C-alpha cells in the first residue's frame, strides 16, 4: 500500500516510531483516563493503517478524497458530493530540511510541516488525496499554496480579511466556485437534499464536541486537555458518523464521572484555557508541559478546538428545496469563524471571555507558533482582555521542536505558581 502511494518507506517507518514513543509518553502515562479514550488510542494506532485503507477503499468505489488545511473549507460541500474530506494540517517537526529548500526559514512550523511531509514523502493522506483545497488566510499559507500546487493540485479559496458586506459577498461567491469545482471533480451534482444530509452529519459532529466542551466546566475536570485536544485533532480526518457516535459514548461516560465527582485531577487543580494557533496532530508539546506540571486544560480557543466547532449551520426558516439558500447558510456559518487573519477580530476576545468564565479558567495561555504574525499580534489584545477579566495570561511563542521545552517549562511553572 505504501509503495503505491509513493511514500518514502524508510522515512515513514522512522516517523511512525517517533510518533509511537511520543504517544506512549504523553498519552498512555495518564492516570484516571476515561475508558472511552480507547477508541482514540485505536484510531491513532491506525492513523497510517486502517484509516488509509478506508480512504483507498472509498477511492476504489469511485469516491474522491479531498484534503483541506484550514477551517474555512466547508466539509458539508465535500460530503454532499460523496467525497471524503480529510484534514491535512501537520504538527510534526519532520521534513523541515526539505521544506526549507523551498520555503524561507522564517516560515511558521505549520506551513513547513505540511510542505515537509509532502516533499519527504511521509504523509499517506496527502498522497491519497485527489486534490487539496487551500485558502488565502495568512500570507505564508497563501504564497505557500502557489508552490504547493507544483507538487499536488491545489484549489485555493479566497478568504477575505474583513467581514464587510462586500467581503461577505465575495465569500459567498467563493463557496459557489468551490461547489462547481467539487461537482466537476466528483462527477456528481450537489443537490439540496444531499447538502441537507451532509449538514446533518457535520452538525452532529460539532454538537457532540460542544457537549464535550461543556462537560469540561466541572471541577474535578472529567477529561484531560491532552485527550480533548486529541479528540479535536482526530475530528479532522476520522469518519464523521463513526466519530460522532464514539464521542457521544465518551460523553456519556464523562457525564457519569461528573455526577460522581470524579475526574482526571483532584478538585481544585489549577485550570487553564489555551488560546491561539491551531495545534495540529501530533503537536502535543504545550498541553503536555502544562498538564505535566500539575494543571488541567479546560478549553482550547483554537482551530483545533472550539473556534472550529462552536457554530452549527443554522437552517431555521430556510426553504429546504432551495440549494442556493442552503449554501447561503453554509457560507454564513463559515464566515463566523474568528481567525486572526480578520480585521477587526473582536469576536475572538469575546469567545475567550466566554470560555474562561464558562469553564472556570484561572489563567489563559496564549499560544502562537513562531513567525505567525496574525496570532502574535493578537496576543496584545488578549493580554488586555485577560487583564479585564483579572486573570493572568502567559504568552508563549514556540515551534514544533523540543529544544525549548526546558525554557517553556520554566515559564509555565511560574505561570502556574501565579494561579495556584
Amino acid at each position: 500500500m505504501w509503495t503505491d502511494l509513493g511514500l518514502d518507506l524508510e522515512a515513514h517507518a522512522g516517523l511512525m516510531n517517533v510518533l509511537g514513543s511520543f504517544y506512549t509518553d504523553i498519552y498512555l502515562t495518564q492516570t484516571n483516563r476515561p475508558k472511552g479514550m480507547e477508541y482514540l488510542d485505536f484510531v491513532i494506532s491506525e492513523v497510517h493503517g486502517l484509516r488509509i485503507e478506508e480512504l483507498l477503499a472509498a477511492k476504489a468505489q469511485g469516491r474522491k478524497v479531498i484534503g483541506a488545511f484550514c477551517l474555512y473549507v466547508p466539509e458539508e460541500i465535500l460530503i454532499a458530493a460523496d467525497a471524503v474530506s480529510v484534514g491535512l494540517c501537520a504538527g510534526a517537526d519532520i521534513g523541515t530540511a526539505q521544506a526549507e529548500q523551498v520555503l524561507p526559514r522564517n516560515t511558521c512550523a505549520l506551513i513547513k510541516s505540511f510542505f515537509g511531509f509532502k516533499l519527504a514523502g511521509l504523509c499517506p493522506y496527502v498522497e491519497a488525496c485527489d486534490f487539496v483545497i487551500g485558502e488565502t488566510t495568512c500570507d505564508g499559507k497563501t504564497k505557500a499554496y502557489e508552490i504547493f500546487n507544483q507538487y499536488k493540485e491545489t484549489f485555493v479559496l479566497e478568504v477575505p480579511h474583513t467581514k464587510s458586506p462586500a467581503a461577505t459577498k465575495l465569500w459567498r461567491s467563493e463557496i459557489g466556485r468551490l461547489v462547481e469545482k467539487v461537482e466537476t471533480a466528483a462527477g456528481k451534482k450537489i443537490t439540496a437534499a444531499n447538502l441537507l444530509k451532509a449538514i446533518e452529519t457535520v452538525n452532529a459532529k460539532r454538537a457532540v464536541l460542544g457537549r464535550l466542551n461543556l462537560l469540561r466546566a466541572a471541577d474535578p475536570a472529567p477529561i484531560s486537555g491532552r485527550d480533548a485536544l486529541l479528540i479535536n485533532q482526530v475530528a479532522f480526518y476520522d469518519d464523521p458518523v463513526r466519530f460522532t457516535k464514539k464521542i457521544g459514548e465518551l460523553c456519556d461516560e464523562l457525564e457519569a464521572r461528573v455526577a460522581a465527582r470524579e475526574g482526571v485531577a483532584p478538585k481544585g487543580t489549577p485550570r487553564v484555557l489555551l488560546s491561539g494557533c491551531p495545534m495540529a496532530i501530533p503537536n502535543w508539546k504545550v498541553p503536555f508541559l502544562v498538564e505535566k506540571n500539575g494543571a488541567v486544560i479546560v478549553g482550547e480557543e483554537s482551530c483545533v478546538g472550539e473556534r472550529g466547532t462552536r457554530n452549527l449551520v443554522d437552517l431555521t426558516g430556510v426553504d429546504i428545496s432551495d440549494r442556493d439558500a442552503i449554501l447561503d447558510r453554509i457560507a454564513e456559518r463559515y464566515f463566523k469563524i474568528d481567525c486572526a487573519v480578520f480585521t477587526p477580530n473582536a469576536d475572538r476576545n469575546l469567545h475567550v471571555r466566554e470560555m474562561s468564565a464558562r469553564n472556570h479558567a484561572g489563567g489563559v495561555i496564549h499560544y502562537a507558533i513562531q513567525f505567525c504574525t496574525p496570532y502574535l499580534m493578537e496576543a496584545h489584545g488578549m493580554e488586555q482582555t485577560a487583564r479585564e477579566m483579572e486573570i493572568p495570561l502567559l504568552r508563549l511563542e514556540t515551534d514544533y521542536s523540543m529544544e525549548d521545552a526546558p525554557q517553556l517549562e520554566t515559564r509555565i511553572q511560574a505561570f502556574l505558581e501565579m494561579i495556584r
Partner: protein
Amino acid sequence: MRAAGLDIGSRSVEFVVIESETGRVVHEREIPTGPAMAEECRLLVDEAPFDRLLATGYGRSLVEVSFGFPTVTEIKAFGRGAQAAHPGCRMVLDVGGQDTKVIALNGAGKVLRFEMNDRCAAGAGRFLEMTAAALRYEIDDFGAAARQGAPGTVISSMCAVFSESEVVGLMTKGSRREDIARAVHDSLARRIVSQMRRVGISPPIVFAGGAARNPCLRHLIEQDIGQALVVPEAPQRIGALGAAMLAAEASA
C-alpha cells in the same frame, strides 16, 4: 529553624541559609557552575545545617531528580527575594548569564506578570562576558571602562554572535576601546529596557543578578527609564534568598 535556598544558575550556584523566624542570613556561599553539578551542589548544601530547602534556577530539576529537593521557579524566587531585600518593591530586573527576567510584583512579593528573554544571548549577561573578552577587559572592570567611553558608537546587530563580530569590526576600524565598551552597554541596556516596558515600568525596582554590579549598565537603564534602580547588597544572591524565604514560609 533554618531554611535554605539553592539557586543553580547557568554561571554560578548560590547557597543561602536563613533563620526562619527573622529572615537573617546565617550562611552563604557561591561557586561557579561546573560540569559535575549534582555532586557540587550536594557538597555545597552539606556545608551548613538547615531544616528545609527549596531549589531554584535553571538547574533545579537536576537536584530534584538527584536528591528529591523540592523546587520553585526563578520567577517566584526572585520575586520573593526582592521583596525581602527591599520590602514593597514592585518590579524585579534580573540580568542573568543566559536570560533576563523582568517581574512585576504586587508590592507584597506576589508575581503579577513576567517576561523572560531566554532565547537570545544578546539580551543577557553572557553578551557582556563575550564582548569584554573580545576587548580584553576583566568583566569586573568592564562597566567602569564603559563609563569612560563616549556615546555615539552603535552596535546594531540583533544577535550576540554578530554583535561580537561588530565589536571586532569596530576595533579594526580603530574605534576607541572605551567607546566600543560603551556601545556594548548601550545595546544591552536598550534591549533590557524594551523588555521592562513590555511588562510596564513600576517603581520601586530591584536590580538583581551579577550584572547589577555593573555601574554603566545600571546608569544607562536608569537614564532611559527615568527611575532609580535599587541594587541590593548582594544582588547575585536574590534568587537563593527568595527560595530560602519561601522554604521558611512553607514550613511555618
